[in-house]
């Protein structure tokens, strides 16, 4: 199968993720969409690795997974803490950071 199709899939996944981040209000869903975007990137990296015939892309994919794991830990902690104080998981309710 033509590897470029994986790139299309990655692009579609990324777009879905981005749209989810921008549109959804539930912090958990937004969070999952971020993960979706990260994984879309990983897919693209791996595809490029295959296309170019070297391992650079795959190595970076591992880095991404590590960063994503760390981000999940911190992100979930923030979401839980916000939910405890405000009894809401909506990102729009946490809008005090403004002038």
């Amino acid at each position: 199968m033509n590897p470029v199709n994986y790139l299309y899939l990655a692009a579609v996944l990324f777009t879905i993720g981005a749209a989810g981040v921008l549109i959804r209000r539930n912090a958990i869903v937004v969070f999952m969409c971020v993960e979706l975007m990260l994984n879309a990137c990983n897919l693209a990296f791996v595809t490029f690795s295959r296309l170019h015939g070297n391992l650079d892309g795959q190595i970076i994919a591992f880095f991404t997974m590590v960063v994503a794991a760390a981000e999940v830990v911190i992100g979930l902690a923030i979401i839980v803490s916000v939910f405890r104080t405000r009894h809401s998981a909506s990102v729009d309710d946490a809008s005090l950071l403004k002038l």
Partner: protein
Amino acid sequence: MENLIGLLVAAPLLGAAVLLCGGRRLDRVDHWIGTLLAAVSFALGAVLFADLLGKDAGARTLTSHLFSWVPVGGFRADVAFRLDQLSMTFVLLITGVGTLIHLYSVGYMEHDERRRRFFGYLNLFLAAMLLLVLADNYLLLYVGWEGVGLASYLLIGFWQHKPSAATAAKKAFLVNRVGDMGLSIAIMLMFTTFGTFAFGPVLTHATDAGEGKLTAIGLMLLLAACGKSAQVPLQSWLGDAMEGPTPVSALIHAATMVTAGVYLITRSGAIFNAAPDAQTAVVTVGAVTLLFGAIVGCAKDDIKKALAGSTMSQIGYMILAAGLGPVGYVFAIMHLVTHGFFKAGLFLGAGSVMHGMNDEVDMRRYGGLRTYMPVTFVTFGLGYLAIIGFPGLSGFFSKDKIIEAAFAKGGTEGWILGGAALLGAAITAYYMTRVMILTFFGEKRWQPDADGNRPHPHESPRTMTIPMVVLAVGSVFAGGLFSINDTFLKWLEPVTGHAEGNSPLSAIEVTAATMVVLVLGVALAWAQYGRGPVPVTAPRGNALVRAARRDLLQDDFNHVVLVRGGEELTRGLVRADHSVVDGIVNGTAAAVGGLSSRMRRLQNGYARSYAVSMFGGAAVLIAATLLMRAV
């Protein structure tokens, strides 16, 4: 001998310093200290005069260098004096008449509680005027010039508790400042043109400069002279200056202050000789002023203001003569000296009359005073005959020469100037006769003053009558003395130069014409005031009389054009400041503020909107990168 010149100025200056700083312990002797130091100055002047007379006509110049005042690089301004025939004449007039006025003030100001200060100011006035005429360069002359302005301000406003006096002093000072600007600009122009402002180099090299520059300097000097000598258009202060004590008026009008302008023009003769346009301006100012002053003098009922109009007119004669160039310089100064005698005498006489009449100044309330004040009557009468140019008296010789010189200007201009001078002589005869008749002749029209005291006219004390007698003697004989063998002409000629005029009329014809207009003027005044009773309140009069009573609307003119104009200008400037200058500053601030508050709305706190910005930014960046690659 040279060292005495400095002392000449120092004596009255010392008097001023002692009297103004001395405090109350001088209260018994202050008037005599002031008079003594003025007399010392006069004595020194007389000694120097004798010394000059002993020298050859060409070598009668003494210079005295005191110290370098402003030495900067190649530029030097010195405190140096120059005593030549011209300065000498002024020194004798200033100190002589000045001393007499001091003596008169001893009697006149006897009961004034601020007498000490008065004499201090008088001495200061003399010192400033002496500095003005003795300076060897224009910068030092300017110091004296400003000193005269200051002293006149202090003296005109001496009775400062009267608002009118305080206002008059301010007015004199402000109007003089306009003239002073002229002098300072003239000095700057001299410096850029000649690189110096010492009399010697400037006046000997005057012809080296272009005529345009000389005309500019000449016009600026004329402006200065107009301010100090109360010539049109800067004449408005002189009438109000009568608010000062009468001896001050005498001093301002006879010996100091108003003569400064004539001195300045005569001293700068070399500049004017090479700038015919400036000379034309000078004669125009002189001719206009001599008629202006004379007309104002006719309408005033206040004896001092009538005399003030007369001074303006007589100084106009001098400026006219000075503007005629070498033909007239000598006669300008000669008239100045004879005028110094008779005008000082007239003012002192007026002061004596006021002294006896409870300080009443309205001539319509005098009348018949000749038997009550015989000395004042005789001295005032002689001054009167001198000023109208009665044959044989001082004014006759000097004024006749000026009229002759005016005709000698030649052409239409000569006829106009000569005609104006003749007309002025007629009006002079008219208004002086009017003053004389209203004051000393006719029935008594005395009125009680504001407190209900009826006047008891009496002759003034000796200290007042003696100066009047001396001045009357001067008014009678000075002109004749100067004219016999052309003594004055020969004396002054080495400094001012002299040219014989080329008059279309012979001297006899001019004299005859002067006599005719003199008789006409006197006859008219007699017909109007001498024959019948004079109303105590002035009749309404025609439009010209009413205008002349208001100084020919000079104050109204100044008010409308200068004051109102100045106000409009400032208002316009304020408006421009508010709308343009402040508009730019405030507008920028408002624009920045408005923009910021709009941009602030972008910070709405919604994480999703920040995310949109991030995505948008990233999209733009990527698009740009791709685009660059494609190109």
